[in-house]
């Protein structure tokens, strides 16, 4: 039975003091043993960025690849090696800027990957340019007068991209994150987890509203099958209006939404992804969506099995001689 220590590597961890990545790493290293998957069957694949250094610190197999391409590389690995537990660690720039296309395609295919997006709403490694999740008007090195780009809402995007598992966690909330990681690991197919991560150097306190939310007034914790109640004394609730949008109501409102992460249609999960601190004064965390759908690598293996059953294991000699042949004596 392995322990947290087994998952540490001999490499000196090189993030800035106070970086949220430390907390995520610690949570992951302490969670891994309970998974009960051998270290050698676990692989971490990342792109480029601060977040992407993650694999160097996990004593499993790992690849620190190139910017934005981790989901594609991991797709090849996972779909040819269904026996492995493959994790992708990526940042908001890596996953949503240069890597956006690979991300949405991996999700729609439902490849057996666990994708962790460390969202710090900034480009950390390149020292502080705005990212696709930076709020519009953000002043950064590359936008002295403020950014012009309307940001992505990562959860809305991936739900629109047919993701089967969608969740959100907070770097410093170890237990919440562990719950989400556990569910993600248990999910068959692609799991997408956005982790709010603080970058004290280039975008400090971007998520203070939930990270420092000791009383839990800002966290709306989603529990499947339970009514959505929140606030210091759970005095608030969420309900859906006739127009499809969601608003805040009293906890005892008869229309209070009962969270259903397993609903076949993603419309509710989508509506919940639009609930934000700015618009609703609260931020949902936890599991938004978790549905079953055929898994890419399993389908691939099935076709091979079926073909082999129907035609017998491939015979090279026979292959070469297939079609019309003629013989010269």
């Amino acid at each position, binding site marked *: 039975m392995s322990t947290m220590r087994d998952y540490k590597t001999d490499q000196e961890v090189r993030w800035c003091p106070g970086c949220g990545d430390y907390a995520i790493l610690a949570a992951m290293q302490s969670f891994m043993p309970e998974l009960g998957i*051998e270290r050698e069957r676990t692989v971490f694949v990342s792109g480029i960025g601060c977040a992407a250094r993650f694999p160097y610190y996990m004593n499993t197999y790992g690849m620190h690849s190139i910017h934005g391409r981790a989901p*594609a590389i*991991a797709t*090849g690995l996972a779909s040819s*090696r269904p026996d492995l537990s493959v994790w992708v660690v990526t940042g908001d720039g890596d996953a949503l800027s240069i890597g956006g296309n690979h991300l949405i395609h991996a999700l729609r295919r439902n490849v057996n990957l666990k994708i962790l997006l460390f969202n710090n709403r900034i480009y950390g490694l390149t020292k502080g340019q705005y990212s696709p999740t930076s709020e519009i008007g953000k002043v950064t090195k590359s936008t002295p007068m403020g950014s012009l780009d309307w940001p992505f809402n990562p959860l809305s995007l991936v739900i629109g991209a047919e993701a089967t598992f969608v969740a959100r966690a907070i770097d410093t909330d170890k237990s919440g994150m562990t719950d989400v990681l556990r569910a993600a690991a248990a999910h068959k197919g692609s799991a997408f987890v956005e982790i709010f991560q603080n970058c004290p150097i280039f975008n400090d306190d971007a998520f203070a509203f939930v990270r420092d939310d000791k009383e839990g007034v800002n966290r709306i914790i989603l529990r499947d099958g339970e009514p959505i109640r929140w606030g210091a004394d759970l005095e608030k609730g969420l309900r859906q209006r006739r127009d499809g949008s969601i608003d805040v109501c009293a906890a005892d409102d008869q229309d209070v939404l009962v969270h259903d992460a397993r609903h076949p249609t993603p419309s509710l999960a989508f509506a919940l992804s639009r609930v934000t601190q700015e618009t609703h004064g609260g931020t949902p965390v936890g599991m938004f969506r978790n549905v079953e759908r055929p898994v890419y690598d399993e389908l691939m293996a099935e*076709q091979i099995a079926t073909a082999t059953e129907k*035609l017998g294991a491939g015979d090279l000699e026979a292959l070469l001689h297939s079609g019309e*042949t*003629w013989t010269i004596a």
Partner: protein
Amino acid sequence: MGKPVEQLSQVIVRFAGDSGDGMQLTGSQFTSETALLGNDISTLPDFPAEIRAPAGSLPGVSGFQLHFADHDILTPGDAPNVLVAMNPAALKTNIKDLPKGGTLIVNSDAFNERNLQKAGYAESPLADGSLDEYQVHEVPLTTLTVGALKGIEGVTPREAERSKNMFALGLMSWLYGRPTDATEAFLTSKFAKRPEIAEANLKALRAGYAFGETTETFAITYEVKPAKLAPGTYRNITGNQALSYGLIAASKLAGLPLFLGAYPITPASSILEELASYKQFGVRTFQAEDEIAAAGAALGASFGGALGVTTSAGPGIVLKAETIGLAMQLELPLVICDIQRAGPSTGMPTKPEQGDLLMVLFGRNSESPVPVVAAMSPSDCFHAAIEACRIALKYRTPVYLLSDAYLANGSEPWLLPDVASLPDISVTFATQPNDGDAFLPYLRDDETLARPWAVPGTPGLEHRIGGLEKADRTGNVSYDPDNHDLMTRLRAQKVAGIEVPELEVDDPDGDASVLVLGWGGTYGPIAAACRRVRNNGRKVAHAHLRHLNPFPRNTGEVVRRYDKVLIPEMNLGQLLKLIRAEFLVDAVGYNRVRGLPLRAAEVAEAIEALVDQ
């Protein structure tokens, strides 16, 4: 009452018609009949750009050229002896290739107002005497076919009319004494689900054959005796098919599952399509969202212990460069097949070119050496694919395999190899620590300089690799200046040290003064050109490179041995640059960038000019 038979040693036939006229099918059936007769053959299909142009239009013309002979031949031939033109557009676009005196068979029914105008003929060429220098046979193919099919239940007039290509095939089969059984069998099985269509095609085929026999139109028939080819079992094969088989063979020989990551692109798509149908070989084909993902997925599969392969053409290969640079840095096997097409940019997607040589050698940031293998003929694609995989697996490196649109779609008879004779390219994964009880992922093999390949799932060898510069032996991230210099040189040495067969020179009397040096897909035309030159009583040596990086050890010695070196290429002189830089010989180029295979006759002229200089 058989008609007189004339003996010929070789014939070049071209079928040309509208995309809808089924010329490719006609051509390939005539090819099989011919192959079965034991002639040597070489074919060249020539389709229009990808999408279908309007019926009867010039861009809509589709052609198929077949060269068959009683001796071994090397190319589909420069110009046809016989042209079958199914409509005015086909005549317009092909007649210029038919030498004076050549035989021309036209479907006179198709020469109506509308078609003539679509083809840009003011007046019918059949009427204005512009075809006087040819032996023209006007045959009302449509009428004859429709007539022949009268009364077949459930066949629409349109369907009847569409069988005219079989009528033409029947006619040609008779003219050159090809038995039609193979085609009949083919048609019967192809239309098994619609027997009436099968019947229609068979009837058309036989009617065409009978038409030749009975009518006065053709006075004599021709015979081309079987060629004396090496004994063995043959099949006709295209380059992309051979390449696909080669990859499957390599996976078997290596004992690793084949994973293909690909994104469709002309003229590489058919490899993806071919391999997708061989799942019983454990082949995984992944149609990715783009070329970057295709290469990435293949690399991911290689990391997991598969034989990772990715296929594309120039515009897609260029997108894979960053990923290939990573594979080179990770020192993992990966085979990248570039089916070259005419460029630059989107260029002319269906046409061949040799424009990507320098790109695959140098098209990555910084010093990033990658081996390159180039196939020499359609059937050689099989062996070239195995060779590319051998190098990738043995040396843990990405390898480019170059083919082109001509090899990809062209076909030739292939003497089937004995499977037992194929090389053993099996690999052994690392399973144990290699430095005391530690595992050093960059501890190299003394002989090959390859690093150990430890795949996920192997207990105790967990390790991390990446694109940052890494320390020698440990593979840890390193910014040490001397280590970087060392690693840069080690990567270069590894590739430079790859063992490849010596360069063979075809110099019959060993005393030629001119060497013709080619590479890849131009083997046929260059070899044919050298034959001509020799038949004309001159001497010439021919060497052909299959390995472009590294070059065979004796390449320098070979090019220095001759007074003059001529390098014919379907580009502006890319191998030429390399040879001059490497060996400081004043080689000269013969370059044609026409989106067509080199013409043997023209290459021969260039050689003779140099010999006579």
